[in-house]
């Protein structure tokens, strides 16, 4: 298990893994260590990690969802699909690097892919604007959805954003309109749409590529109307109450499945997708193939009708006649 960055709550396991690494290095120096002893410690580390990850609090899930080593949209696109061709620009203002779009193949099927893209180092983070799109990013995504519909290609979207960017230019160029237009257009697309929350599903900026026939969530990702910090600042008047807000908001995959907002949870390897990305790619690819096969049974009219009913049914209220 290679892990470059450990989270605070993972500290106890980190210590155990360090001891294991030490044992292994002594071994190469010729000191006798029984294979059994090493295997035992290795098992212990795996168990500790599995145990830890089986009972993460919502605020710990938030940290994993935002983990800097976590696979991002382009990682999934490059490892789940083949022959990716990136397509750029909204044809009106600019190309927004915070959303990537293009054509790719899932097995033998040509599809359209898109998603918010975060950066790994400082330079990339700035280039990708921390995965926070401007209106032109959403308009590029819309252009790709319409292209997919014209050519009858299924759409796969990857959601990973703290939210749409709150800035002067973004407001001036119609951030709200760009999101709204996508919500409406996605509801009428005559091709299968599969959305996957792979990290942070932040508010309207996430939903703008999330009106799908099937909404999947990686096991340790989150999806929420507002960040726990933002919610705490407003409702608790104290941003440090983010733990409480994360819990109250019910932002993890298991809660969202119960609420019927998502359709399926995709298993991650023990300790999160970043520890064994290959396993995460493989798991997601299997679910994609299944899900697409299911949706391909439906006519365009059924797809549009069922998608409408799916979102139509969301919400809980009482009614006195």
């Amino acid at each position, binding site marked *: 298990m290679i892990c470059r960055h450990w989270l605070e709550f993972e500290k106890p396991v980190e210590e155990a893994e360090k001891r294991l690494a030490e044992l292994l290095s002594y071994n190469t120096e010729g000191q006798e260590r029984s294979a059994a002893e090493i295997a035992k410690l290795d098992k212990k580390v795996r168990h500790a990690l599995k145990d830890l990850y089986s009972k993460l609090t919502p605020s710990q899930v938030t940290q994993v969802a935002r983990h800097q080593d976590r696979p991002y949209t382009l990682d999934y696109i490059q490892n789940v699909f083949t022959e990716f061709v990136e397509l750029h620009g909204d044809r009106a203002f600019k190309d927004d690097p915070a959303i990537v779009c293009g054509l790719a193949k899932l097995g033998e099927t040509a599809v359209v892919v898109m998603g918010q893209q975060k950066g790994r180092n400082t330079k990339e983070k700035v280039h990708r604007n921390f995965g926070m799109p401007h209106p032109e990013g959403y308009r590029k995504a819309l252009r790709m959805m319409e292209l997919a519909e014209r050519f009858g290609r299924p759409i796969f979207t990857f959601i990973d954003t703290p939210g*749409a*960017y*709150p*800035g*002067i230019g*973004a*407001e*001036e*160029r*119609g*951030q*709200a*309109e760009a*999101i*709204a*237009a996508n*919500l*409406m*257009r*996605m*509801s*009428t697309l005559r091709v299968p749409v599969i959305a996957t929350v792979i990290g942070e599903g932040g*508010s*309207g900026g996430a*939903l*703008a590529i*999330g*009106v799908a026939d099937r909404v999947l969530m990686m096991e340790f990702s989150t*999806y*929420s*109307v*507002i960040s726990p910090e933002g*919610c705490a600042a*407003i*409702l*608790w*008047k104290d941003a440090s109450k983010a733990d*409480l*807000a994360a819990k*109250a*908001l*019910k*932002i993890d995959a298991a809660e*969202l499945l119960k*609420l019927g*907002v998502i359709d399926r949870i995709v298993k991650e390897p023990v300790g999160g997708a970043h520890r064994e990305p290959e396993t995460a790619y493989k798991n997601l690819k299997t679910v994609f193939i299944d899900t697409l096969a299911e949706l391909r049974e439906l006519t365009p009219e059924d797809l549009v009708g069922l*998608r*409408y009913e799916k*979102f*139509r049914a*969301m*919400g*809980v*209220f*009482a*009614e*006195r*006649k």
Partner: protein
Amino acid sequence: MIWFKKEIRANGEEAKSVKVPLGLWVKCDHCGEIIFKKEVERNLDVCPKCNYHFRISAAARIGMVADEGTFKECDAGVEPVDALDFKDLKRYKDRIKAYQKDSANKDAIITGEAEINGTRAMLAAFEFSFMGGSMGSVVGEKITRVVERACETGCGVVIFSSSGGARMQESILSLMQMAKTSAALGRLRACGLPYISVLTDPTMGGVTASFAMLGDVIIAEPRALIGFAGPRVIAETIRQKLPEGFQRAEYLLEHGSIDMIVERKLMKDTLSKLLAMLRRDTGAA
């Protein structure tokens, strides 16, 4: 997504839009004038000195545009539920009760059917005083129903927005109302029926980023604050002073985001004219 009530009032600039009651007199916090209350009311809750458009109730709004005696409310029995058992400093259940006690409304919106200068239309008006006009399941459901009813009966839709955005106490369910209402408007569009969106002070967050910005025609009241992100959030993010008039109706008109700014006294006639001109049986050669 932003949701504000007290926040907006605590903030210096936003506080201007609050009418301070002083018995028979009101102080316009925009121009500072003390004005006889009756005079303001006669003037459709617009300051006679500076033309500031005060925030008004949903009922007052409907009264200003519907022909007398024609408004029939729909879905009045739809009520909020604390589905997530949400508790911040207070329980959501208790907040609902407290607001309902102080309000004539069960939630932040009134919907129904009316005639506007003889043209039948579906109407929706936000009640900003109910939890900052925030959109939860009730608002989403009532808007969706009113739009679906327009599709069934073949008339246009007018929505007066006034909202801080999504209702955080309904968490993800409130976010999903954005998709739900936008999808309903997609159907209205497919039916070829007009939707006029009227943005009043303030229209923010998830409301702006869904049905409010999807009008065939988008109207705003003078000086209304309209945006996706709140001005405070933007200022904190970019660490810069915001431009003069930023996110105000006039600024949006200049930047091409809305079709027109209409004063309250001209609203009814403007709406009926637009609805009549966009009706399917008129104008076609």
